């Protein structure tokens, strides 16, 4: 029997492990090697140059600017998205919960659920192009036009170093919130209603209900969402590439530069694939460090129900 089950395990796992090895492990191993060469990406020739690329990384100002922007994204995007997601989900859910008492829920809760999800259905390139127009720096832009109605001077959203990166972060948050609203409402729906009824009988405020009961009970979901958002925030490539300039400059003057886009420019515009791969390895290490840190920081007692 044991021999039979071993054979089953081996045959069942052989194909996935083989695929994983060929499609994931081997490219990673190869990129570690390529990052130690001066490969320009256009010929099979490459010279081994040791850690030169990494020494150059350490001295490269644009690299550190990019790292800093990635770190900002990792801190800001999950925090704001989770806060907004939880807020909207609670608003929808609290309405539904009270409805059981015989009243009506938040008017149009079902519609909100669907509408919140809309941005998530659009491709990120489409969103980038749309928001480039929304952020038109003249007075006739959509956002500046609206601000003009309340007497605010036009803001050069994507052309000013102060606003360009926050403006892009806002787009990613706008894009992400809807999905987490759906995720959190369904997580909240799975909490038994009698727990809330009992708490209400004990006279808890809504604020207490949220912090002491709802949040701990859906903590697993929030934690996974946070890590997932953080890993996505490390990317930022697509939005920067579409919104900074044609071909993704990361401008103005590197004020929106992120590792993904810097890697892309280095590889495809400057034809320095070896150096670009070193940036990629740095990004990989950053991602792993983030995932490890996030798992450690968000470890909490799990509440069973």
């Amino acid at each position, binding site marked *: 029997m044991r021999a039979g089950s071993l054979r089953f395990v081996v045959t069942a796992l052989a194909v996935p492990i083989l695929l994983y090895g060929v499609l994931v492990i081997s490219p990673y191993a190869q990129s570690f090697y390529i990052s130690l060469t*001066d490969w*320009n*990406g*256009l*010929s*099979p*020739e490459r010279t081994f140059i040791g850690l030169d690329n990494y020494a150059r990384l350490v001295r490269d100002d644009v690299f550190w600017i990019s790292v800093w922007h990635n770190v900002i994204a990792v801190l800001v995007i999950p925090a704001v998205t989770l806060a907004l997601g939880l807020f909207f989900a609670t608003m929808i859910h609290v309405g539904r919960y009270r409805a059981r008492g015989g009243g009506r829920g938040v008017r149009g809760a079902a519609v909100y659920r669907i509408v919140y999800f809309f941005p998530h259905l659009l491709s990120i390139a489409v969103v980038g192009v749309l928001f*480039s127009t929304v*952020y*038109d*720096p*003249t*007075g006739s832009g959509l956002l500046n036009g609206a601000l003009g109605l309340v007497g605010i001077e*036009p803001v*050069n*959203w*994507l*052309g*000013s*170093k102060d606003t*360009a990166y926050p403006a892009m972060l806002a787009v990613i948050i706008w894009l992400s919130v809807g999905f987490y609203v759906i995720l959190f409402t369904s997580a909240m729906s799975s909490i038994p209603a009698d727990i809330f009824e009992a708490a209400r009988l004990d006279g808890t405020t809504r604020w207490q209900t949220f912090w002491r009961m709802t949040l701990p009970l859906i903590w697993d979901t929030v934690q996974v969402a946070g890590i997932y958002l953080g890993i996505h925030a490390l990317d930022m490539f697509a939005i920067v590439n579409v919104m*900074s*300039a*044609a*071909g993704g*400059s990361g*401008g*103005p*003057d*590197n004020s929106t530069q992120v590792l993904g886009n810097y890697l892309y420019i280095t590889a*495809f*515009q*400057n*034809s320095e694939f070896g150096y670009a791969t070193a940036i990629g390895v740095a990004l990989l290490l950053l991602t792993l460090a983030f995932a490890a840190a996030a798992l450690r920081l968000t470890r909490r007692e799990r509440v069973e129900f």
Partner: protein
Amino acid sequence: MTHPTRALSRRTLLGLGAGLGALAGTGFLSACATSSSTRGDGASASPQATGDPDNPLGVPADLSLEAIIFKGGYGDQYAIDAEAVYQQRFPQSEITHTGGQELAKLLQPRFVSGDVPDIVCNAGAGALMLAPLVENGQLADLTPLLDAPAEGGDGKTVRDTLLPGIVEQGTFGGVPYALNYTFTVHGLYYSSSLFDEHGWSYPSTWAEMLDLCQEIKDATGMAPWTYQGKNPGYILTPLVMMAIKAGGREVIDALDNLEPDSWTSEPMLESARAMHQLVERDFIMQGTSGLTHIQAQTYWANGEAAFIPCGSWLESELGDVMPEGFDMVIASPPSLTDDDALPQAAIRGMGNEPFIVPAQAENPYGGMELLRIMLSPTSSQNFTRQTQTLTSLAEYDPQSAGTGLTSVRDALTESGDDTFFWRYGTWYSPLQTEAANATSALMTGEIDPDEWSRRCQAAADTVRNDDSIEKYGDQ
């Protein structure tokens, strides 16, 4: 990208070609020999001198031809038209045409594997960088093409029918590896009908430019200047042009040779100070630094700003956006001082849309033959009709010309031998990127001209001191 059956047919042809070695000519054989791709070893062997006036390059009639053409503002119909001529000449040849963008992504894996097309129009934002390809010896020497008799050239060689500077601009380390098909002039565009209406005339000195800007602003409320803010290389161009006109050709040599005071020299600083005046006196359209080239050009065409710097592709790029009777014309930027080294009319004119033939191509002489066809007066007229842009062929009659193209031709005639160009941007893209970034900061008032020149000089110094970057200047 390569369809398996196509690869198969190429192999079959290869076998056939080997069998017909005598007919195939040395070009074909040398293409095979370079498959190991060693440095400087292009398909440089001279072609079989067939003496055949219809096939001076000795193109093997049965080899297939693969062309990859950048399909941007000019489209790729002009290349398809030339391929039709090629097909008539070599009916047995199987022609594959791909029009596309982001060519670096399309071609990078093919250059690595060695399965390369026979000719590439390597243009647009996502183009391949030429310098590393040259360093690797992956491009064919185009000398056979340049020495071949020109199509419709009355016995002149292709080299002799091209505009001055074209061969030089595609030359790396003394060898012509790229041939720019179009010829563009760079300067400031304005609407001549608008200027006539208000009685404005184009300024010949920078002081007059500033006066005119003030007048434009006071009289109409429109912004005097805008530029393609998110691509600040556009506004760097008139800055460098004015410096070159003020300081003469030494300025170009200094920039191209990465000299230690190339960006901090008096003409460059003077020009940066002049451009900075536009910022200080608030002559630049609000929000300009946040505009894409399309947005900026559209605002300009709609009369939101009076001047925009651009190359002469602008007329074709604007297309229907340009209002009726707008009458756009180009002019070289004003002179900085009264005693500039070059006249005000001196303008930057240079080739664009570089065509390359990969050294490992199976039919390199076929690729060159296609270029030879494209450089005929007939094909050039066809191109100009489709794009309102000149090719690099000298002395052909473009026939159909709008106001923009007419002004381009006038500007070129007036500039004559003073027409100039520089090459540091093509050779050293990291320098161009950093200089453009610094210019973006200069034109938003974030840094002053001194800081600007220091930043640009630092970038030039970095490139000069980096031994891993191949140098192309004549130091």
